[in-house]
């Protein structure tokens, strides 16, 4: 059963990594604007490039 110490340690390290990732995303402003990217992804790029060519 002593393997539990290792497993719990691993799970906490993993969870901490996710928490750090979230904090980083929040601090770097990735959650500031949640609406615009949803619209932006619907806009086509190809059409534009064809015209340029």
């Amino acid at each position, binding site marked *: 059963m002593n393997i539990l110490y290792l497993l719990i340690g691993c799970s*906490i390290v993993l969870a901490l990594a996710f*928490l750090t990732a979230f904090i980083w995303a929040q*601090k770097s402003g990735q*959650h500031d*604007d949640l609406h*615009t990217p949803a619209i932006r992804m619907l*806009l*086509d790029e190809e059409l534009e490039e064809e015209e*340029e060519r």
Partner: protein
Amino acid sequence: MAQSTTLDKTTCYHCGDDCVAGCYSSAEKDFCCSGCKGVYEVLSRNSLCSYYNYNDHPGTSRQTINKRFDYLSEPTIVSELIDYTDSEKTIVTFYIPQIHCSSCLWLLEKLNQINPAIHYCRVDFLKKQLNIRFDHQQLSLQGLVELLDRIGYEPLISLQDIIKKQNAEPKDNLVLKIAVAGFCFGNVMLLSFPEYFGMGATEQSFRHFFGWLNILFSLPVVFYSGNGYFISAWQNLRNRVLHIDFPLALGIAVLFIRTVAEIITRSGAGFADTLCGLVFFLLVGKLVQQKTYHHLSFERDYRSFFPVAVTIIDGQSERIVPLSALNTGHRMVIRHQEIIPADAILLKGEALIDFSFVTGEAIPVNKTLGEIIYAGGRQMGQAIELEVVKPVSQSYLTQLWNNEAFTGKQDNRLQTFSERVSKYFIVILLVIAFAALLYWLPADPKRGLAAFTAMLIIACPCALALSTPFTMAAALSIFDRNGFYLKNTAVVEQMADIDTIVLDKTGTITDGDKNNLTLNAVLTREQEQLVYSTCMNSGHPLSRLICSYLGSQNRLELTHYIETPGGGISAGIGQYHMRIGSGKFVIGSREDPAHTTQVHLMVDEKYLGYFSFLQHYREGLEQIVGLKTEYRLHLLSGDGDYEKNALLSYFQDATQMHFNRSPQQKLDFVRALQLKGNKVMMMGDGLNDSGALKQSDLGIAVTDNVNNFSPACDAILDGSSFAKLPAFLRFSKATVRIIHCSFMISLVYNLLGLSYAVTGKLSPLMAAVLMPVSTVTIILFTSLATRLAAKRRKLL
């Protein structure tokens, strides 16, 4: 487009307004005005016509005239507008109200195709902001703004945005606190399960390991996530007020101390998961309450209405000065559609000033040379020159903001229900806790201490603290779905307490410019001229409406002219004698009390007929006037009383209607009502109502376009939702009732827990179950009950 060719009227390819085919056309597409056509041409030149593929008619109407952005060449103004600059690039953020669809987004992020000096553009759709990075050596800020204006996206540049930027609030880290609390909550729960399910004798070493880990996880929850509660509780104690944060902080502290003590002395498992869950749920409740509308501003004042700079004549040359540098004695030039920023004397030119926003007067006013023109008017027509007589902040209109309603930190806001209740709650809680402690202390000190701490843990008013935020958040989302935007959640409770409603007239209960004038007479060409010439001499709004109805005519010379206030005009033109005015004045009979105002015409004792004005009031005025059984109603207007008769059919009581009120008098009127003990809700739309809106217990700005300017207020009501106001008022009362009910439910949970806690035998499992269950019950109850209440009032 095949559809529109079959119709007689076509729609503008750019903005979708009706237009006449062939008037403005380019590449076989029709446009309503040269502005829309110009935008199309710019876009097609730069092969950006995909703009029109994403949405039909994505543009907004461009019938406004060319604006001047000369002031953007002034370095002092530029430096205030930009976010960042160095030798190569400049970064600037604009607020662009026209952003409304995916086409806007697409085009604005493709600006570098029009001008390669623009490196980077990013749109924030909800905030309607555009962030641009550009090379200022190739493109000036003025050039950039002119480019945006040319493609139909004129940024809104106002003084207040500059100021707002300067005192931008530090970024809130509530989300981070929730993330940390949630992370710890999840882990602690996982580590606490073995304890709840029971552990064998061989697994005792795990028990201590888990216990220490739990303490480790509780540390950031208490000292980082929960620190706000300790700070707030401490401040409350120092100010000698009891707030709900006090028992919360007490609960958190006791939970933490008892957990640490139990684990160190190995006497128990502690309450780490209850602690983390409590802080997590409380913070979520806080987040829910912080609803913000990014595209709305509730704090605007005259500064966001006034221009940023004004052109002044300095000797022979013209130069541009920022508004803050404008002083008395300056000679300024105001062009077509520009706003006069300070009280000034007219020196040169023909002034036709539109005061609609300041006084609520819908029709432009003629001013003669030497007359003082108050700030806030908009010049229509040719350029005029004026000499400033008062600085901007001391003007007739702006001095309203020096009133104590704006300067003093008045606290006429009501205490919220939870604030009132929590006072008693805390006192009762402490009394019971100490009673339990004293009861057990002589016989069994250990058990007494256990009972005491258990009481504080179980009575920690988590559900109580959550009932208000969750109910309010649900109510707010129902309001905004119906076009009613509240500044914060406290407004709902204020709204439920209102007993007096004060309405502004123009723009609030009347509907835009839909002033309908019909002529019930057949006039010859000569008679038209006579009526026109007579009415041209009068400043009365009805006279001006008649003049604009008759169009431009030859103006005849008058031999005499007498205007009787409240009656009409009697004038002589050549051999003719004119009488124009009310029925009583012209023919001596009473006017019929229909929804119309009538102006009768008589030439040489021969009755010709009458003009009738049908005022268009907003739909739903009947319902609002129908509220008078529950609320006291008042009408407060800056206009003269020429609509009194039309309004009388709605209000029935002339004493409720007050005309000719200045902005200051409106404020004083509201204050007088408040001094009589009334809770006043003010509804207004313009700068002239600003004082009254601010002074009132609940100020609502009514606007037809929520992105347009609206004065500082507690709530913004979309004009199309005007008829729903009675439902809103009833719904706010229902919301308060729901809060009362949820308080009762959480009290039941508290009592249930207390009956266990008094004996001192509170198991960690019991606390760990009770806390989330009560929280979930409250959240479910409040959101379901709010939806139900909204459905019953047809708001959902």
